[in-house]
C-alpha cells in the first residue's frame, strides 16, 4: 500500500484552477520531492493532504484512508511543517511542544522523553527564550520538532529550506536526511539541489498539472545528455568552427575561453573531441564531461 495516493485531485478557487486532476502515489519509506515553480499548486496540494483544505474533485488517501472522511484518524499519523511555521510567540519551545503533546494525549512519561529527544534533535535544548525572539532558522527547527511530536509516519514539509541561510539550510537538510531512515517524507520545494541531496523520488508540477513523476535515478537516465566543457588558453573560435555541422553535436555555447558542447552521442564525442582539439593545436586547459543537473532537467521538462 502506498503511503500517499492521490487520484484526480482538483482544487479550484473561483475560475482559477490551482490543482488540476493530479494523480500520484508515494511509496512508504520514500523521500518524495514535490517540485514546481512558485504558484504551481504545491502548497494547495499539501494543504489538502493535511486536511486544511478540501478538494473540489478527486480524492487523497493516506495509508488507504480517505482524508476527507477520517481526518482525525489520519492526523494522528502525520506531521506538517508549513512554509512559514507560526507559534504562540509568548511560549517557549518546551511549552509549545508540551501543548502539542497535550493535543495527542501523550502520557507524562512519553511526552517528557519525546520532548527531550526532539529538542536535542533540533538543537533547541539550551534555548530558553520566548519563541517570538527566535530567528527564522530556529522557528523552522521548532516547526520540525512539533511535526514529529506524535512520532508521525508521514512528514509533510512545505518549502522547509526556502527562506533559510546556507547554514540553516544545511542543518534542516541534515535533519531530513536523518528522518528519512524511518519515515515517509513528502517534501515540496523549488530548490532543486535540496531534492538531489535528500529525495529518492520526484514529481514535477506546473500550473497545477503533474508534468513528470519518477524516481530520481530514472529521471536522470531518461534525460541524460552528456555535456562537455572545454577551456582553452586563448580564443576558442577555431575549435567552434570545427564543430559546426557535426551530427553528434546538439548545441555549442561559448563563454570567453570556455566552450560547452552538448551531444547526443557520448561515445563519438568522447573519441572525436580530443582529435579536434589536437587539430586546432590550441592549448587546452580543461576538459570535463558532465551531466545535466536536475535544474537543467527541470527547465527542459517545463519548457
Amino acid at each position: 500500500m502506498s503511503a500517499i495516493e492521490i487520484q484526480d485531485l482538483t482544487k479550484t478557487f473561483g475560475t482559477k484552477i490551482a490543482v488540476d486532476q493530479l494523480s500520484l502515489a508515494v511509496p512508504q519509506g520514500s523521500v518524495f520531492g514535490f517540485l514546481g515553480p512558485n504558484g504551481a499548486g504545491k502548497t494547495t496540494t499539501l494543504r489538502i493532504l493535511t486536511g486544511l483544505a478540501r478538494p473540489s474533485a478527486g480524492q487523497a488517501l493516506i495509508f488507504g484512508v480517505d482524508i476527507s472522511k477520517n481526518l482525525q484518524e489520519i492526523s494522528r499519523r502525520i506531521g506538517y511543517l508549513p512554509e512559514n511555521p507560526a507559534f504562540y510567540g509568548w511560549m517557549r519551545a518546551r511549552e509549545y511542544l508540551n501543548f502539542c503533546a497535550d493535543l495527542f494525549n501523550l502520557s507524562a512519561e512519553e511526552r517528557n522523553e519525546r520532548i527531550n529527544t526532539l529538542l536535542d534533535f533540533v538543537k533547541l535544548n539550551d534555548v530558553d527564550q520566548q519563541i517570538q525572539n527566535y530567528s527564522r532558522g530556529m522557528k523552522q527547527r521548532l516547526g520540525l520538532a512539533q511535526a514529529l511530536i506524535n512520532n508521525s509516519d508521514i512528514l509533510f514539509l512545505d518549502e522547509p529550506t526556502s527562506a533559510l541561510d546556507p547554514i540553516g539550510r544545511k542543518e534542516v537538510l541534515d535533519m531530513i536526511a536523518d528522518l528519512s531512515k524511518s519515515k515517509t517524507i513528502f517534501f515540496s520545494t523549488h530548490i532543486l539541489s535540496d531534492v538531489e541531496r535528500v529525495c529518492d523520488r520526484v514529481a514535477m508540477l506546473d500550473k497545477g498539472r503533474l508534468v513528470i513523476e519518477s524516481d530520481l535515478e530514472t529521471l536522470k537516465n531518461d534525460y541524460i545528455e552528456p555535456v562537455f566543457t572545454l577551456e582553452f588558453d586563448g580564443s576558442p573560435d577555431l575549435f567552434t568552427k570545427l564543430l559546426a555541422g557535426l551530427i553528434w553535436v546538439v548545441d555549442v555555447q561559448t563563454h570567453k575561453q570556455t566552450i560547452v558542447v552538448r551531444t547526443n552521442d557520448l561515445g563519438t564525442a568522447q573519441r572525436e573531441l580530443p582529435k579536434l582539439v589536437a587539430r586546432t593545436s590550441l592549448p587546452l586547459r580543461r576538459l570535463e564531461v558532465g551531466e545535466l543537473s536536475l535544474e537543467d532537467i527541470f527547465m527542459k521538462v517545463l519548457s
Partner: protein
Amino acid sequence: MIAFLKKEFKEIFKTYRLWVIPLIFLLIGLSSPASAKFLPDLLEGQLKAEGVVLKLPEPSDFEAFVQYFKNLTQLGLIAIILLSAGLVSDEKAKGILAQVLTKPVSRPAIVLAKWLAQGSWLILSFIVGALGCYLYTLALFDKASASRFLYANLFYLPYLLLIFSLSLAISAAMRSQMATALIAFVGFFLISITATLGQNYARYSPAYLANLSHKALSKSVSFSEATWPIATTTSLIAIFLIVGIWVFSRQEV
C-alpha cells in the same frame, strides 16, 4: 478542550491580557466617581470665571454609579470588542491555527475554550472594576448603596458577556481582526438600538439590561422584569457561539 483551556489561561497570565483588561475596568471604575464628584465643581468654577453663576445640586453616590455604567457602555464594551476581535481571526491570519489544526483537535473546542477562559477573565476584570468603583465612591461620598450597585452590576453582566460572545463568534468566522471589530461594532449598534424600540419590544431586548441597571440604582427592580432580556441574551450568546463554531468548522484555514 482541556489542552486549549490550559493554553488560554497560560496566555492570559503570560501576556498583556493579564493586566490590560482589569486595568481598563479599574480605570472606568475609578474615573466614574471622580468625575461625578469633581465635574460639577469644575463646571461651576469655569462658568463663574466667565461671570455666570450656576448652582448644581450636590452630587451623590447615585451620580457616581450612573456615570460608571455610562462609561462601561461607551468605553468598556468598545474595549471588549477590540480586545476579543483577534482571539481567533488573528491566529488564523498568522498561520498559528493552520499548524495546530493538522493535529487531532476539535474546532468547537478551540472556540469554547477561548470563550470560557477569556470570558472568565473578563468577569474577574469586571468585578475588579466594580469593586474599585464602589470603594472609591464610598471614599468620596461617605456612603454608597452596596445592594443597589450589586443588582445593577448583576443586570449588566449578561449584556457584557453578550457583546464579548458576539465579537468572539465573528472572530471565529472571519480572517481579519479589523473586519471582525467592524462587524462587531455594527452588531453592537444594532443590539443597542433594540432597547429604543418602545416598551412592548424593548423589554425583550438584551440592551434593556443596561436600562435595568440604571433603574436598579434608584429603585428596586424585580428579577421578573429581567427574565425576558436575560433569556434573549442567553439565547443570543448560544446562537452567536453556535453560528461562529459552525462557520469556523467548515472553513479552510
